[in-house]
């Protein structure tokens, strides 16, 4: 192949000399370069330098990798896994924990309420039999002769009755705790499965 433009002012360019060095020029071009080199010391010097550099680079010692490489085969039938989204497990755990906390708090508050402000006994109303009802109303004078209504808060306090447990609250709490435990179990099940497979 004739490399056009590879000669400048009668001398082969370095690119052409580099190709000449690797025998990457046509026979015709090779003859022409050889003839030129026979009579041109500077071009011979450039060619010698290129050859030397190339030889030195070729003699660069090869580096050894520090460890051998191996591709490991992938199991043909990987163990089936539950196709759950990534957020499923943490979400389920969070919901379960939240539920347990809420129910526990509810239970605790309910117990405190029972201890601090006992509820009236079942069947008891705000008005005792034979006692005038207490009405919260504006202070408007009634007709003369009529006795003024009893002042607010003057009604006698109901007798202290020992508080009784509330079975309904206990049931709700128990169910909540069970639901929380169940959710936690469901959330941890895929993790346990993955570790055992």
């Amino acid at each position, binding site marked *: 192949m004739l490399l056009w433009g590879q000669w400048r002012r009668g001398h082969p360019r370095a*690119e052409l000399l*580099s190709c000449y060095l690797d025998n990457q020029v046509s026979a015709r071009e090779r003859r022409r370069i050889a003839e030129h080199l026979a009579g041109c010391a500077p071009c011979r010097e450039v060619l010698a330098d290129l050859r030397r550099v190339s030889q030195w680079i070729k003699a660069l010692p090869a580096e050894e990798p520090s460890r051998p490489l191996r591709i490991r085969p992938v199991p043909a039938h990987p163990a089936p896994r539950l196709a759950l989204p990534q957020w499923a497990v943490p979400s389920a755990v969070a919901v379960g924990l939240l539920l347990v906390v809420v129910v526990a708090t509810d239970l605790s508050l309910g117990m405190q309420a029972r201890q601090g402000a006992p509820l009236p006994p079942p069947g008891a109303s705000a008005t005792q039999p034979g006692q005038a009802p207490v009405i919260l109303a504006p202070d408007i004078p009634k007709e003369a002769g009529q006795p003024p209504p009893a002042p607010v808060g003057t009604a006698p306090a109901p007798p202290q009755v020992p508080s009784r447990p509330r079975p309904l609250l206990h049931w709700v709490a128990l169910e909540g705790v069970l639901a929380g435990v169940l959710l936690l179990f469901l959330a941890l099940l895929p993790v346990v499965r993955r570790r055992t497979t």
Partner: protein
Amino acid sequence: MERLGEAGVDEALLIARSQQGDTDAFNRLVAQYHRQVFNLAYRMLGDRAAAEDATQETFLSAFQKLGSFRAGNFRAWLLRIAVNACRDYLRSGHHRKTLSLEGLAEEDPTTPFPSNDEAPEDYALRRELRDAIAQGLKTLPPDQRLAILLVDVQGLSYEEAAQVMGVPMGTVKSRLSRARLAMRSYLLAHKELLPASLRFL
């Protein structure tokens, strides 16, 4: 018809078996080309750890893409993947730290010690020359460095180098000659890096 040598037949068989998912066959190909790919990556990136990473990436990628390989030059195909892995690494910006010139002066633990047949002076000379060449290679633009590594270090033909670089053969010639001239200029300008007995450039 071109007759394939025993190695060529073996390689074709290994490739065919690897394409069917035979990892043992592929591991034999890995063992065959590991050193070559690692050396190319090492000279391109100038850092052992980076070269190890790029080499691993090359073989993993090759295993995944093996289905797309058609009959041809497996070495050129593999080295092209290696070159792309190196380019990705250089583009990622990690090389800024690893290509420091200070790193070159560090003692390389893998440098072979002088053998019993080699005089200590010869060993020292070989070592100095190796360091000077390695320094010079690092100053080349990546494209020129790749050309000189493929042709002069890896011993690829111009045609194979063109295949690996993904450029026409004329571009390979041009880059290679520029790289050699740049190396010559570098060594002329840094004669002090050369062993005293070789300062005749």
